[in-house]
């Protein structure tokens, strides 16, 4: 009997060993597979188990977290949702994250390993670092000025600091309140469906995710190419351009809105936005150099991140001379985001240098210590510094006595360029009103803001839509807000 008891005991020991081995299998060997199973709610619960870090504008958070007491505990709220939605994006428990909420998610949700000084210790204790904060480069006054300037009209504004590439304002209208999408209830589902069905596309960030034909504002690029290439050496010399201008190799004739463009020197042609002159200049510069200049300004670059991605602005690289003529006045396949056009204005303001714009000044831990800064940004020389100086002169003339007088700010040096871009089949679509500009305050040594405004106003008469009339006042308000702060 004793032997049998011993055997039975060995049997029990085997059962125990089986349990231990199996527990090790589930908890250690295969635990990763179980943890990563999409049906496992734990990662989601952990993600929403602590308040999300905040996004700061002008030193103040524009976001907050609401304790719902539910299983997914904290919900995102926005103090000024529609105003900052084109920057923050949304952080939804159902629909994920977009824009800064998406690109800075690691810091905001506390998973970024940089947030904890002792990552190994954290792994052991399973602590999740409290969410860090994201400090943006935005200027709250400029942002508000742009938002209120658009006043619900469809359009977008992008403003950057020329010397650094800091984004000062990024506005898209109409906007939406991202708080509506934060939770996980039926309201959220309804809001999502409504926002997506809205023909005005309030969730589309027009400043960085929508390209428009830049129209006459693109003449800044064409002028830069012409000056750099030596096609024009004297701003005041006649350009030998006819009015109307027949597109090379076609019978299509290009005309101007105003008078006096025939043979106009570059200064006048820029001031009065002569299509004929710039079309001819583009052809004279040649496709290769036009493409090179446009690309050095940032066109055709699919890799722009601010830190969320910006859709590439385009300048067609395979064009015949007629297409090149149209491309050079911002038509045909030339398309630009408002941010891209702000970069063009900033390059003029900053001696021809193009800096990749950025929105995040730095990321911090919950206690305010810095986790990361954007670091040195790549700089490209888009045009010769002397060319930039001459373009500043041209743009200043536009605001002083040309089409952009609405953007003038007393006491400040302001340069700008209007644009009225027709689009659609046979130009049947509503034109877009553009204005790109920069401003230098009386006490500043260099321009401190460059801005691009586009207004797509379907309700207005075609005649009333013009860069100078609709877009320039908004640009002025934004520039004033920056100069004043």
């Amino acid at each position, binding site marked *: *009997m004793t032997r*049998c008891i011993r055997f*039975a005991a060995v049997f029990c020991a085997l059962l*125990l060993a089986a349990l231990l081995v199996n*527990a090790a299998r*589930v*908890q250690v060997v295969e635990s990763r597979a179980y943890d990563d199973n999409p049906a496992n709610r734990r990662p989601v619960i952990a993600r929403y188990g602590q308040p999300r870090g905040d996004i700061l504008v002008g030193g103040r958070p524009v976001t907050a977290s609401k304790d719902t007491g539910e299983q997914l505990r904290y919900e995102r709220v926005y103090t000024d949702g529609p105003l900052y939605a084109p920057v923050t994006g949304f952080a939804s428990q159902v629909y994920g994250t977009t824009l800064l909420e998406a690109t800075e998610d690691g810091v905001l949700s506390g998973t970024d390993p940089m947030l904890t000084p002792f990552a190994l210790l954290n792994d052991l204790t399973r602590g999740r670092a409290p969410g860090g904060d994201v400090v943006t480069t935005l200027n709250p006054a400029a942002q508000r000025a742009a938002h209120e300037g658009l006043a619900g009209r469809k359009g977008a504004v992008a403003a950057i600091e020329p010397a650094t590439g800091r984004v000062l304002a990024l506005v898209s209208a109409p906007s939406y309140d991202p708080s509506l999408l934060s939770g996980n209830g039926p309201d959220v589902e309804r809001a999502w469906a409504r926002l997506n069905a809205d023909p005005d596309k309030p969730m589309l960030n027009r400043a960085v995710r929508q390209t428009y034909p830049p129209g006459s504002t693109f003449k800044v690029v064409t002028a830069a190419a012409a000056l750099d290439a030596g096609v024009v050496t004297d701003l005041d010399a006649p350009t030998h351009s006819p009015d109307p201008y027949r597109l090379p190799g076609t019978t299509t004739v290009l005309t101007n809105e105003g008078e006096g463009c025939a043979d106009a020197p570059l200064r006048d042609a820029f001031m009065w936005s002569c299509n004929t002159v710039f079309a001819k200049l583009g052809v004279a510069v040649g496709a290769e150099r036009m493409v090179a200049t446009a690309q050095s300004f940032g066109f055709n670059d699919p890799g722009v991140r601010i830190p969320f991605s910006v859709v590439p602005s385009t300048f067609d690289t395979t064009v015949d001379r007629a297409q090149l003529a149209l491309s050079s006045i911002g038509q045909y396949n030339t398309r630009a985001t408002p941010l891209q056009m702000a970069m063009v204005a900033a390059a003029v303001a900053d001696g021809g240098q193009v800096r990749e714009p950025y929105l995040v000044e730095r990321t911090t831990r919950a206690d305010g210590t810095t986790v990361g800064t954007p670091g040195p940004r790549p700089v490209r020389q888009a045009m010769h510094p002397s060319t930039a100086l001459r373009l500043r002169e041209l743009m200043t003339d536009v605001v002083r006595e040309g089409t952009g007088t609405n953007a003038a700010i007393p006491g400040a040096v302001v340069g700008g360029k209007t644009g009225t871009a027709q689009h659609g089949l046979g130009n049947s679509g509503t034109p877009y009103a553009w204005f790109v500009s920069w401003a230098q305050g009386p006490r500043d040594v260099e321009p401190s803001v460059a801005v691009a405004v586009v207004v797509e106003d379907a309700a207005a008469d075609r005649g009333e839509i013009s860069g100078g009339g609709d877009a320039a006042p908004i640009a002025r308000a934004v520039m004033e807000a920056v100069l004043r702060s």
Partner: protein
Amino acid sequence: MTKAKAGIRTAAAAADAPAPTVRLPRRRGVELSLIVVAVLLSVCGYCAVGLARTGTLPPGAVGYGAGLGVLALLAHLAVRWRAPYADPLPLPIGVLLNGLGLVLIYRLDLETPHDRAAPTQLVWSALGVALFAFVVAALRDHRVLQRYSYVCVAAALALLTLPILFPAVNGARIWIRVAGFSIQPGEFAKVLLAVFFAAYLAANRNALTYAGRKVWGVQVPTGRVLGPIVTVWLLSVGVLVLERDLGTSLLFFGLFVVLLYVATGRTGWIAVGLLLAALGAVAVGRLEPHVHARVEDWLHPFASIEAGQGPNQLAQSLFAFAAGGVTGTGLGLGHSVLIGFAAKSDFILATAGEELGLAGLSAIFLLYGLLVERGYRAGLSLREPFGRLLAVGLASIVALQVFVIAGGVTGLIPLTGMAMPFLAQGGSSVVTNWAIVALLIRVSHAARRQYDGQVAP
């Protein structure tokens, strides 16, 4: 303490004698210190839950500690008084597992504020300890039970049959509801059946081993000997299949086979047992949809996820264990409540696995292992067959029960509903387990006392 005096006298007398006798230490101090450790560990767990959840010590910590401490002390005093030679380990293990179970249930109560189970469980634990003290104090000699073996089996069958008269709960007819308390009579039947098996096999083991004819070289016992035991076994298994409680059925069967093997020493019984088990498993798995579904779940725990219906209980249980990793999330910080129904009873181990990790889970398994080992040890050191079989039977109940339910929730074997001894919510189970520990204490007391004052072997 007449025994102590007697011991001293024996020792004094032995000083002159040529063959020295051994005065065995009684080890009650060891038991007391281990109980203190067990109570302190439980209180620490209780406090850890509060600190993790609200950052403060839970308000009931002192009361909980005092309550558990008083219960454990009463049990200890009963042992000191009536079973001074008993093994010092089973009682502290019981206290620790019961205390830990209360902590886990309290912790899960925080997730379900409308459905609190910990207070009821504490009442049942008190009843269990009272039963423990009663058994230890009243049962002077475990051999008395041998006389009541047929009473035991009758009572066991009555208890097993009783729930058929009551409505089914969650697909199984194993509960009866009396005055708001639900009782699972099958739990009590386990101990009674173990007593009966032990008594019957102790009385008839020679007949089972040697009597009977040889058929094809195999000794077949006479029908007179084998009849009653097979009848009892068939009845109990039959009743359980009717009640759809596969876990308990499996437990009885395993207990029967182990005791039969230990009593007769014939490997043939194991072969027959395994054959019967295989036949039974196939038959039940095919015919009974409830059981068939469990087997399917075991083979494909994520089938419901792939079908787009979300994770089932077993998948959630596996997620919980996996989330625990080696060190666990810490008490109060896991999400095993996602398991939903039965998180506090059948799946309580998932909470332990998630919040205490593989380290804590292994510790719990080893505690059970230690308890079983102490039972077997008592069985080995006894000289009379009934006590040996009883000790082995009781220890095997614990071992098999732990294996069936722990293997089920960790995906080792198909899941069958059963209570984790001491840990799980369930009054009948906790009371039964205290009775098992009480009997082990009695048996171990008898085992050790026989050597006291004897010539060293």
